[in-house]
């Protein structure tokens, strides 16, 4: 069983498919996420692919503070993803709510609604920071497997 688990963990690290969801961002973080997917940074060399549907995705990349209107939809998209799934919060607003925290229409950071695995601060977070964050999330996956033993 150990070998099979190892192969599965390896494949999970080598093939993270992402889905991008704007939870109320000002669009700056979205542009940086799209920039990270362009040929200049070429995320496909790490196996990252952008998918259109939550059913195919492993990593939910969220940007922006959670507004009250989007809260239930974020929850729904998270529930539609098959296990194992991870959430990455991109940008300061997604991490804590940022300057919008406490605003009447804003709920606060992503982690108040769904569990978050990696936080990437920045306003906006640069493509390099996003790639670094995703790579750190994946390496932490490997460490978790080691700790289990």
């Amino acid at each position, binding site marked *: 069983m150990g070998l099979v688990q190892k*192969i*599965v963990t*390896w*494949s*999970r690290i*080598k*093939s993270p498919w992402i889905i991008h969801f704007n939870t109320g961002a000002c669009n700056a973080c979205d542009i940086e996420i799209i920039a990270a997917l362009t*040929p200049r940074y*070429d995320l*496909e*060399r790490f*196996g990252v692919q952008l*998918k*259109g*549907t939550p*059913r*195919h995705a*492993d990593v939910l990349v969220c940007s922006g503070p959670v507004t009250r209107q989007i809260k239930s939809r974020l929850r729904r998209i998270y529930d*539609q993803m*098959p*296990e*194992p799934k991870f959430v990455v919060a991109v940008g300061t607003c997604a991490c804590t709510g940022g300057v919008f925290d406490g605003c009447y229409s804003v709920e606060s950071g992503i982690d108040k609604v769904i569990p978050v695995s990696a936080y990437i601060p920045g306003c906006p977070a640069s493509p390099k920071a996003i790639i670094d964050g995703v790579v750190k999330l994946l390496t932490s996956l490997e460490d978790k497997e080691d700790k289990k033993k």
Partner: protein
Amino acid sequence: MLSIFYILIFPGFLFLSAFGLAAQFVDRKLCARLQNRVGPPWFQPLADFIKLSAKEDIIPEEANPSMFKLMPVLAITAAITAIFYIPLWSVNPIYAFSGDLIVVLYLLTIPTLTFFLGGWYSTSLYSRIGAVRALTQLFAYEVPLLMSILAPALLADTWSLKEMSLFYSAHPFFWLFNILGFAISMIALLGKLEKVPFDIPEAETEIVGGTFTEYSGRLLALFRLGIDIEQIVGAALLAAVYLPFGLGLGPVAGFLLFVLKVLTIVCMLSILRTIFARLRIDQMISFCWKCLAPLAFIQLFIDLVLKGFIVR
């Protein structure tokens, strides 16, 4: 015992899966290089497959569970069955009878039908739109594909792939007259495999994931593997019909030549998918009926004239 070996190992499931995944890598790497990127590492398709197999299977509440689970298996089965009737490295396919050309074309239609049924029984709106588009597209590319593949068969005066390869081995360089048909079936194959200029059924930017919107985990992995296998089988069919040379080289050299032929076709498909952008469904259909079908008629005409004046 031998049939089980054929079905499960070579040239059946195991060989085709490995070759399909390798071809997917070639396709993605070439596409990446053409876009000035580094591209995925060699194990990427395998990692994708293992990861998807180890993920949770979600079957929507509204969906019909048995149909939903059956469709990916059916797609793979049909694609694998077709390879047994295609001559690979010698003139002899594993099984042959007169009229197997039609059977191969029919078996290669089944994956598209499973995409339709799988999408339809998902009962999600996006998958239904994708499913209907897949079927609409089928009617557009299937006729030019069938006509352009029947033209070489007409020249050889047979409906059997074995007899066809025998004829083209006896008449070398006759395949040069079928170059037009080769180009047409290449474009039609792009539609069959739902690759970029014709990836209308799974257009991610319009209808989320198209036919496969609701598929996840193991079933999606099987569907993706089915498309990879279909690509290999389609390329092998085109190689057998349009590039029927070097069939008497013996097992090893012949096998290498077969792999080379298939990879050439895969590379050409991948170049085509990189340099074009997605068409709309109406543009695709008018292109197939107004350009591809008349060209296929010209190919038929060329072969009829050849048959009348040269072959007799």
